[in-house]
């Protein structure tokens, strides 16, 4: 669908093709025939593919620039520290695919085999997929409208040979649009364990997080919790703390209490984080003693606990 009129009821609504705004729309006949509402066969195909994946986690943010991709990469690093845990990281930020750079994988290529596309392996137990690997130049822009981005996401979920994976982490672009709707819809039959939402402390960022939370409720996506990033800065010279992004309304802590959502943790701003990402290195290796590393590790543990408790809960349901 190229362009919908103002007041478009949506291709999958009961009014599709029948509303007053539908008159003159090029897709009117298609919508009225009910074709827009037919379930995509890819959903079942993806459910089959996801049988070898134990846990699926979405990393979301309302706002750009709050550290979502940095967090996704380090969540992957952290989980993969245990050599027996298989981790996969899928980057669905089609227009701004930063994961390859953050993980030092720029220039890597994706290969095709009989069983599908192979992810790029950072370690034996950590595989990564991103549109970044499909672009030939760092200047290439992906100037795609929603439907084409959705097609790419479908392919990533259906055609990548992930193999046996304990955790599939999906890094998203900021917002609540095509990419988010698509990933939730395509994984509808496979089930997503939950979403981790990133924010910075200031109210302008929290406002967007509240919308992100509202999105999760709307699409019935469980929320694992919120991470407050860039939470305080320790001056390397005088060691005193200051707030670069002041929590004028109480930060994520107050918001989480208000909305009864877990605050998974607060990560302070350490300039070494940005530097590590720029070099494509894990911050955990570059600065193992940083308070930011400790904060990340604690958050990752809470995410693992959430996933395990869901697994036991589901197993109990099946056996009862």
């Amino acid at each position: 669908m190229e362009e919908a009129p103002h007041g478009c009821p949506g291709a999958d609504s009961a009014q599709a093709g029948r509303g007053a705004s539908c008159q003159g729309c090029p897709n009117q006949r298609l919508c009225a025939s009910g074709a827009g509402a037919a379930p995509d066969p890819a959903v079942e195909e993806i459910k089959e593919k996801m049988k070898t994946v134990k846990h699926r986690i979405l990393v979301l943010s309302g706002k750009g620039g709050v550290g979502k991709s940095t967090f996704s990469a380090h969540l992957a690093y952290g989980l993969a520290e245990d050599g027996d845990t298989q981790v996969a990281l899928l980057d669905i930020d089609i227009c701004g695919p930063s994961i390859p750079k953050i993980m030092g994988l720029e220039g890597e290529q994706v290969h095709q085999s009989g069983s599908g596309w192979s992810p790029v392996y950072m370690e034996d137990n950590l595989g990564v997929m991103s549109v970044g690997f499909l672009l030939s130049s760092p200047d290439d822009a992906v100037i795609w409208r929603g439907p084409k981005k959705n097609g790419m996401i479908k392919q990533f979920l259906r055609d990548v040979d992930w193999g046996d994976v304990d955790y599939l982490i999906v890094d998203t672009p900021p917002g609540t649009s095509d990419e988010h709707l698509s990933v939730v819809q395509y994984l509808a039959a496979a089930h997503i364990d939950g979403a981790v939402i990133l924010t910075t402390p200031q109210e302008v960022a929290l406002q967007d997080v509240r919308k992100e939370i509202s999105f999760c409720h709307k699409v019935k996506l469980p929320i694992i919790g919120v991470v407050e990033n860039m939470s305080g800065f320790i001056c390397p010279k005088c060691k005193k703390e200051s707030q670069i992004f002041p929590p004028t309304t109480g930060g994520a802590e107050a918001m989480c209490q208000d909305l009864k959502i877990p605050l998974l943790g607060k990560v302070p701003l350490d300039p070494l984080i940005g530097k590590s990402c720029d070099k494509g290195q894990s911050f955990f290796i570059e600065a193992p003693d940083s308070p930011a590393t400790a904060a990340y590790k604690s958050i990752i543990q809470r995410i693992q606990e959430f996933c395990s408790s869901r697994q036991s809960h589901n197993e109990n349901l099946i056996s009862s």
Partner: protein
Amino acid sequence: MLRAQGKAVHQCDQGWVPVFVDQEQSISLMSVGFLLENPNEAVVWRGPKKHALIKQFVSDVAWGELDYLVVDTPPGTSDEHMATVEALRPYRPLGALVVTTPQAVSVGDVRRELTFCRKTGLQVIGVVENMSGFVCPHCADCTNVFSRGGGEELAQLAGVPFLGSVPLDPQLTRSLEEGRDFIQEFPKSTAYAALTSIAQKVLHRMPALHS
């Protein structure tokens, strides 16, 4: 940020009336934020619906006589960006201000934004490097929290002007949070100096975009 939350958008014969954010009525604002009943409500729209609204924001808002229309966009090179360029293409001069933070990871994404500008025939007024250094309020030592130099390098690489760097200033953040006028309240801040210098450069470059 402009302390206009909760304001309503009204209709007049010429279309939707934008919201004035200052006493002198020199700055008017239109945003989807004004159309939401509940500020916490998520706008979960796919591309076509966003595209349609953006076209309306250009054609159906009674902007009146304007010297400058500034369009704030989300990150990326997708529906919103294409819709905006399409809707504004008939109007001249039209240029893009491209904002990055200093570190290589951001520059990596913003390079693609510059390609978008080139491919869509959108002239680049220049590159701005934001969040460029933080001056510790306790000891005045400046730390490059998000690294440094990326903005200038990017501008050089792309052959476009580098307009300047804006440092991280918690006073600026706080003013935005509280909807206060940063320009009035903190004229001595380094961020103020940087912002006004960049604004001057933009004003200076706009006439050259006519051709």
